[in-house]
């Protein structure tokens, strides 16, 4: 089942109205009943009281005195709203606070309705001995009171309902509409457009959603830019040897040695691309086993020492005993790539050192050299994942991309920093995560 918040809002508005109307009606009905009961009971009591007083032993009341009494006692605040009549069954005469000679209709009835003086009257009738006392209240008085009561109930309810509906409208304006506009913007947007969404939203929750989406899109845009850059670098790396091959092989005297060198270069590139593709495919962690990193590094360094010497460079190692969970082949590739970089970028008389340190926050593998170093701007770009480092004829940025991927699958980070001692040179630092307890 799908739920539309706008439908929910309409339901909420209807329920606010229903609650208001129903509440008023129910309150009114109960109040009216209770009020009527109280009034009826009051009349009944007064009637009984008067009847009993009249009929009490030894009370002799002449009609004039009775009339005065009724006039005075039952005409509150000058309003003629209470009509009292005393009928004497023995004489057949009646005394009332109003001048009338309406006959007694049915002495046995308790509840009485009469028409008089253009109004409806209703009330109670009680008999005691020879007297029948009839006490009636004018209907319009009751109506007036009821209107007053109704007004008093309806006013606050109506105000509360209006406030609730206004709040509901605000809620819709601040949340549902921006949300719909937001959704429309996303819907109508081209899949490749990763510009930030611009929705003015007063509600913090929607701003949070918008900002989160914009951050996500910025991240995606950055990743895409990196991938595009990578593809362009790869194209560059593949097209140069291909062009050379074409030129050599279609020329008048093909240089087969040069052509072979280019084919080797292509083969290396393809090999590196395959390594990258395999690294992307994942599942490496499943094969991870504890590796004595110091022994692995020592082996690689031993193999490279001679090549460094041939190129006039010096390679040293300072290896603490460190074990990390990982894949031996990948870790070797990582170190080999870092050492190849030193060979490629540093001239003779460069000293390079492979340093392995154990620390509480994880092991640290550093390859530090006394070469020309890398400018801060380029280091920043490298840290952002842009692969292109130089354009020497050797395959280049792919080595860096491979190093980063290998570090990634080991949960390690790859950082390019200047030498700690202020001298020229580069320190490439691989920080491994602390061993799992």
């Amino acid at each position, binding site marked *: 089942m799908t739920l539309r918040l706008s439908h929910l809002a309409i339901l909420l508005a209807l329920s606010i109205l229903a609650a208001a109307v129903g509440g008023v009606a129910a309150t009114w009905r109960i109040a009216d009943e209770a009020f009527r009961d109280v009034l009826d009971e009051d009349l009944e009591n007064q009637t009984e009281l008067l009847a009993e007083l009249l009929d009490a032993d030894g009370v002799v009341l002449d009609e004039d005195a009775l009339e005065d009494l009724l006039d005075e006692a039952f005409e509150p605040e000058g309003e003629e709203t209470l009509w009292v009549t005393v009928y004497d069954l023995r004489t057949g005469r009646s005394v009332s606070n109003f001048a009338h000679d309406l006959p007694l209709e049915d002495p046995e009835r308790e509840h009485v309705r009469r028409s008089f003086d253009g109004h409806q009257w209703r009330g109670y009738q009680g008999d005691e001995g020879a007297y029948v006392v009839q006490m009636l209240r004018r209907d319009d008085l009751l109506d007036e009171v009821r209107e007053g009561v109704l007004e008093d109930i309806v006013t606050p309810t109506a105000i509360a309902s209006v406030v609730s509906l206004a709040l509901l409208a605000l809620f819709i304006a601040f949340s549902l509409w921006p949300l719909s506009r937001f959704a429309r913007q996303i819907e109508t947007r081209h899949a490749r457009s990763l510009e930030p969404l611009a929705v003015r939203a007063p509600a913090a929750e929607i701003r949070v959603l918008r900002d989160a989406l914009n951050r996500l899109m910025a991240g995606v845009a950055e990743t895409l830019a990196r991938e595009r850059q990578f593809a*362009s670098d790869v*194209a*560059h790396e*593949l*097209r*140069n*040897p*291909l*062009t*050379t*091959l*074409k*030129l*050599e092989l*279609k*020329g*008048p005297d093909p*240089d087969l040695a*040069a052509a072979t*060198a*280019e084919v080797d*270069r292509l083969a290396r590139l393809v090999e590196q691309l395959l390594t990258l593709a395999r690294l992307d495919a994942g599942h490496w962690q499943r094969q991870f086993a504890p590796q004595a990193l110091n022994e692995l590094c020592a082996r690689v360094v031993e193999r490279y020492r001679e090549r460094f010497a041939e190129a006039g460079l010096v390679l040293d190692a300072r290896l603490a005993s460190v074990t990390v969970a990982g894949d031996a082949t990948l870790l070797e590739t990582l170190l080999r790539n870092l050492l190849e970089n030193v060979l490629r970028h540093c001239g003779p008389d460069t000293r390079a050192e492979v340093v392995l340190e154990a620390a509480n926050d994880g092991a640290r593998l550093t390859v530090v050299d006394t070469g020309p170093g890398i400018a801060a701007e380029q280091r920043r770009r490298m840290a952002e994942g842009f692969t*292109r480092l*130089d*354009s*020497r*004829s050797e395959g280049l940025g792919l080595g860096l991309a491979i190093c980063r991927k290998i570090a990634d699958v080991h949960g390690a980070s790859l950082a390019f920093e200047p030498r700690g001692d202020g001298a020229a040179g580069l320190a490439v630092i691989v920080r491994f995560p602390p061993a799992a307890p």
Partner: protein
Amino acid sequence: MYLLLVEDDVNLGRALVKLLKEHYRVNWVRTLESARAHLSTAGYDAILLDLGLPDGDGVEWLRSLRGEGVNLPVLVVTARDALDDRVTGLDTGADDYLVKPFEPRELLARIRALLRRQAGAAGPCITMGTLAFEPEFRRFRLDDEIIELPPKEHQILAVLMQAGGRPVSRERLHQQLYGLEADVDSNTLEVHVHALRKVLGRERIETVRGFGYRLVAL
């Protein structure tokens, strides 16, 4: 014809030079810095420019060149094949744009087209009066007769044709024959000009005193 090749890839540069030097005099540089230096010392007829260079972007350099009013034909030769790259390259002032990998024949044809346009000819032939040059076949015609010229004379005449009647300095012609390294005081240039005049007629090549030579349309 004198070309400046800006290409940082060693193997590709080597192969390109091998191809181009069959047809033109070529200087090959691998950085923008040395491209700048070369451009200020020699008179080139065209530049072949790779874009991704170690010390900067070729497009930016091209922009600054055009800003300085350098009108040399520039052929961008690059691995960047995205439409945006090509459009940006051409809009920045490249005269043509060739994406790697390319056919050697296509590169040569495009260079010829650039040079022809530079000499003011849209067709396959550059003419000066009754003298005509067909770069595609590397031959000259005088009064519709093909004339055979030794390589040095051929080069000198090609440069003069390319200049289209404008005077060409002795240094420029000298560089064409011997490159940047040669001693400019040598008088072998006069010898070759003299030989050319014998074939074409004396009045076709006019000496511009204290400067060099120019071709006269007859």
